């Protein structure tokens, strides 16, 4: 049970709508969304780099996910899970 809980709390889950930037071309990018590739607009995140995870909304990247913050949130989630296990 314990290991199952860990497994469901993978990093991917934390990314909500993870779209991985594969390549950039002006105001557009090719992204991978759970194995599906798509062309998106990057006008709203001009600082985006290949390898970033972005939040995707109606065909545009609207924000870049921060892995270090995601890690902190995961730590908070683990703490929550541990409290519920003690109970």
């Amino acid at each position, binding site marked *: 049970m314990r290991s199952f809980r860990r497994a469901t709390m993978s990093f991917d*889950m934390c990314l909500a709508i993870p779209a991985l930037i594969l390549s950039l071309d002006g105001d557009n990018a090719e992204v991978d969304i759970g194995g599906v590739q798509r062309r*998106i607009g990057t006008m*709203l995140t001009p600082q985006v780099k290949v390898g970033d995870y972005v*939040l995707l*909304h109606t065909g*545009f990247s*609207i*924000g870049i996910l*921060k892995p270090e913050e995601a890690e902190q*949130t995961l730590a908070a989630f683990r703490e929550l899970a541990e409290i519920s296990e003690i109970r």
Partner: protein
Amino acid sequence: MEFCGSHTHALLRYGIRDLLPPTITMKSGPGCPVCVTSTHDIDTAIAIAMTPQTIIATYGDLVRVPGTGGSLERARAAGADVRVVYSALDAIAIAEKNPSRQVVLVGIGFETTAPTVAASIVTASQKGLRNYRVLSLLKLTPPVMQALLQLGELRIDGILCPGHVSVITGLEPYGPIPTRFGVGCAVSGFEPLDMLRAIGLLVEQFESGSPSVVNAYERAVSVQGNTVAQQLIDRVLAPCNAEWRGLGCVPDSGLSLRPEYEMYDAAALFHPDVTESVEAAGCRCGDVLRGSISPQECPLFGTACTPEYPVGPCMVSHEGACAAHFTYSLTA
């Protein structure tokens, strides 16, 4: 209250409502863009769709929302060219392929969608497109939260704020909610643990009697938000009064095109005669959107009104509270 329709769905889908102690009640708010679009605005979109040589581009669910005399889907059946798009950029592509026809994007959505619509207008201007227009029905989150609190119909002790709206806006626009109304705000992501954590923070704030704005979605939301997107909204769009289903006109709660971009404004070209808009008899979507009743309290819920044959938008939209309750808790 969870403002966002996606939160409503996630709370029901993961059974979080049932897990919470009886002292915590979650009320669904007006955070579903399709649902809050007024019947009058839907009638306007339908009238534009029926204009010859016009193509309507719209996001998914809106085509099925009943107006006074039908829906965009019915208009399509009657010969109108209504196309469902995923992105405003798809509408731009349609305009490029159909230079002799006007392409009108029905721009619904909140702050998350607003910069994408603004980006499409800037793109149309860069490409020199003269046949792309936006019917802007965009709406703003913090003004309507304040209008709802002002109304005082419900005693709301904390607001679960929409994560992806906040990616754009940052935390500052929620400031007046704790200071003016004494109600705490927690920005939340959409995973079950995100929401539990944010609800926990709201309870802590309520118990300590010190409401503030907290960010419980740090991996996506920054204090200042997406400033590039904010600047793009400011460049192309300006606040205006907007009509909300269930709430009527809320001052400065919408976005319309600035005069410099008038040539992309559908409202400047089309003046459809939509005088008398009537909501479907018995539909209580307006009350559901204010959190005044739960979906199950509407007499049409699950009988005359189902996702297959919806009477009101809250049953149509994937983000609608009625559709969420119908899908996940019909037995409750």
